[in-house]
């Protein structure tokens, strides 16, 4: 079944009403996630990557937040049209999510075992004893040492890496087909990050999951994803398989991001920096949202938002003045 589409997002717009007006946090996002693949969703703060994921889970803040347009088709069903009861059978069950900060997403006053068992029992009618057995199995799968004892541990008794493993154990306990990982390693030290990334990769193979990996870190994207969606200010800038995105970034923003990161295997004298800051997403914007920071912007960029265009096979970009293929690599 590899290759067919598990999650398909088309023209998604998730807007929030605030006292100051409508915030267009996600404004026309489309991409597909194939079965068995790891898709990276990369962008800076405010790019809309988390809101996109929360829209898939229908977990965005309500009633301020609203999906105003678009569809999210998961396994043949449109999530945006589901009622809350049907959504409940999907959320945490066939789509599971892990978050950035494991300390704030675990309940501090319950043991790990109880929390995992509760999640299982929310979806399956089984006895508590059985749920605890599954919880123990999950803790073993994520490589927590001494899992029998850890079932009875409280979150504060565990290190950050262990908590993230416990979160992952909870997420996989209902055998999800899609795992959404929202910055799962951002709060962790690098040596622990390496452990968790390796674990997620192994579990994906073992359990046959697909992964939507949300991160701001291009290096993490390069390491573990098959394809990447680059988001900027609520829209998709570029969408391609990971190798061609890094070899031939076509959107000036993608290129700017790549030039502004440090690489420990390279010597760099001066880092490129994208001038300016992310625009406010209040209200409707005309033109390309990156135009005011872009060194390739022309008059059309200010007047009309670019459409997504397949510039090379499987390599989509939304830019009026995209960088041509073949001149990727280093700037200048």
């Amino acid at each position, binding site marked *: 079944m590899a290759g067919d589409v598990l999650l398909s997002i088309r023209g998604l717009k998730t807007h929030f009403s605030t006292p100051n007006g409508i915030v267009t946090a996600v404004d026309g996002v489309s991409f597909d996630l194939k079965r068995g693949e790891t898709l990276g969703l990369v962008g800076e703060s405010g790019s809309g990557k988390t809101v996109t994921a929360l829209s898939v889970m229908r977990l965005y803040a309500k009633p301020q937040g609203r999906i105003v347009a678009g569809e999210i088709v998961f396994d043949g069903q449109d999530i945006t049209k589901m009622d809350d009861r049907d959504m409940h059978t999907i959320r945490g069950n066939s789509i599971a999510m892990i978050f950035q900060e494991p300390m704030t997403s675990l309940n501090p006053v319950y043991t790990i075992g109880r929390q995992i068992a509760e999640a299982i029992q929310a979806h399956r009618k089984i006895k508590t004893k059985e749920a605890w057995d599954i919880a123990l199995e999950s803790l073993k799968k994520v490589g927590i040492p001494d899992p029998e004892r850890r079932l009875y541990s409280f979150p504060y008794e565990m*290190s950050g890496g262990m908590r993230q493993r416990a979160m992952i154990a909870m997420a996989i306990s209902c055998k999800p087909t899609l795992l959404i990982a929202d910055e799962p390693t951002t709060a962790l030290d690098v040596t622990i990050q*390496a452990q968790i990334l390796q674990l997620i990769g192994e579990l994906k193979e073992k359990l046959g999951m697909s992964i939507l990996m949300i991160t701001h870190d291009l290096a993490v994207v*390069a390491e573990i994803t098959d394809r990447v969606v680059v988001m900027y200010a609520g829209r998709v800038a570029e969408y391609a398989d990971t190798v061609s995105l*890094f*070899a031939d970034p076509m959107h000036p923003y993608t290129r700017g991001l790549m030039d502004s990161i440090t*690489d420990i295997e390279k010597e760099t004298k001066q880092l490129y920096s994208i001038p300016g800051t992310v625009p406010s997403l209040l209200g409707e914007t005309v033109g390309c949202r990156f135009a005011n920071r872009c060194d390739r912007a022309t008059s059309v960029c200010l007047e009309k938002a670019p459409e997504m265009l397949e510039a090379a096979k499987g390599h989509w970009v939304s830019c009026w003045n995209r960088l041509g293929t073949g001149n990727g690599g280093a700037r200048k």
Partner: protein
Amino acid sequence: MSEFILRVERLTKEFAVHGGVGNRRGVVKAVSDVTFSVERGQTFGIVGESGCGKSTTGRLIMRLINPTSGRIEFRGSDITSLKGDALRGIRRKIQMVFQDPYASLNPRMNISGNIGEPLMIHRIASSAAQRDEFVKELLSTVGLNPDYYSRYPFEFSGGQRQRIGIARALSLSPELIIADEPVSALDVSLQAQIINLLQDLKEKKNLTYIFIAHDLGVVKHISDHIAVMYLGKIAEIAGKRELFSTPLHPYTVALFSSIPIPNPTRKKMRAVLMGDMPSPLSPPPGCLFNTRCTHVTERCRTEIPVLKEVAPGHLVACHLY
């Protein structure tokens, strides 16, 4: 012969811990026996994971906290136990840039107040008008519009706030700036802006930096010499090129190998470090890294390795060398 602006000798800071579950009592050695020297005009990087003592080291040098033992020498004179006016005099020369630009500015003071407070404390500016003039100049130095001087911190983005934090550190024309994770709260495109600004300022104002960070890529980019810390101790110190081409300490090797590289065609074989850092409340005997080290021997479990020079300027604390 290059001049050392700062020397730190066997610096140790212990924190007493009590309370919590079962009213545990104990001592955390946050910084233990740390020795290094910083040459004038260079950037000295300190890297390590959370809890390795890198920030505590920075705060000790700044004399924000007092060391339990050890010596801090600045421009050849001992500043370890300075007090009062003498300490204030030294603080003009050593300034700090903090990690969180949202927490390190006073939200109820305008920018002129935030940046200019040191100028008033040290009686460099005698009136508010004079202070504002200084502040305007500082704002343009760090690439902000000087007319922003009367605005408040909430009106600025994270990157702009960090520029304000840098302007405040520069206000007393210091010689040494301790930057504690100055870019880790920022998005990558802004990180690059701030790093470039710090590098420009260093040239223009003849500054020396101690750059504390957990991000090895950033530290490598900006530093001349780098110290790697683990559980309060220095594991290895070397020049940047030397350290990255021939890392010696097994922890340094593991740390480097854990870093993801932004190139999908260069996926590397990685030596993933097992387990967590031990609790600093009950560190293992012998070498602190022995619980996670792949080269561990019996000697590592009993004898603490000392930092020794194995090549010119390359020091490592490991029994393998």
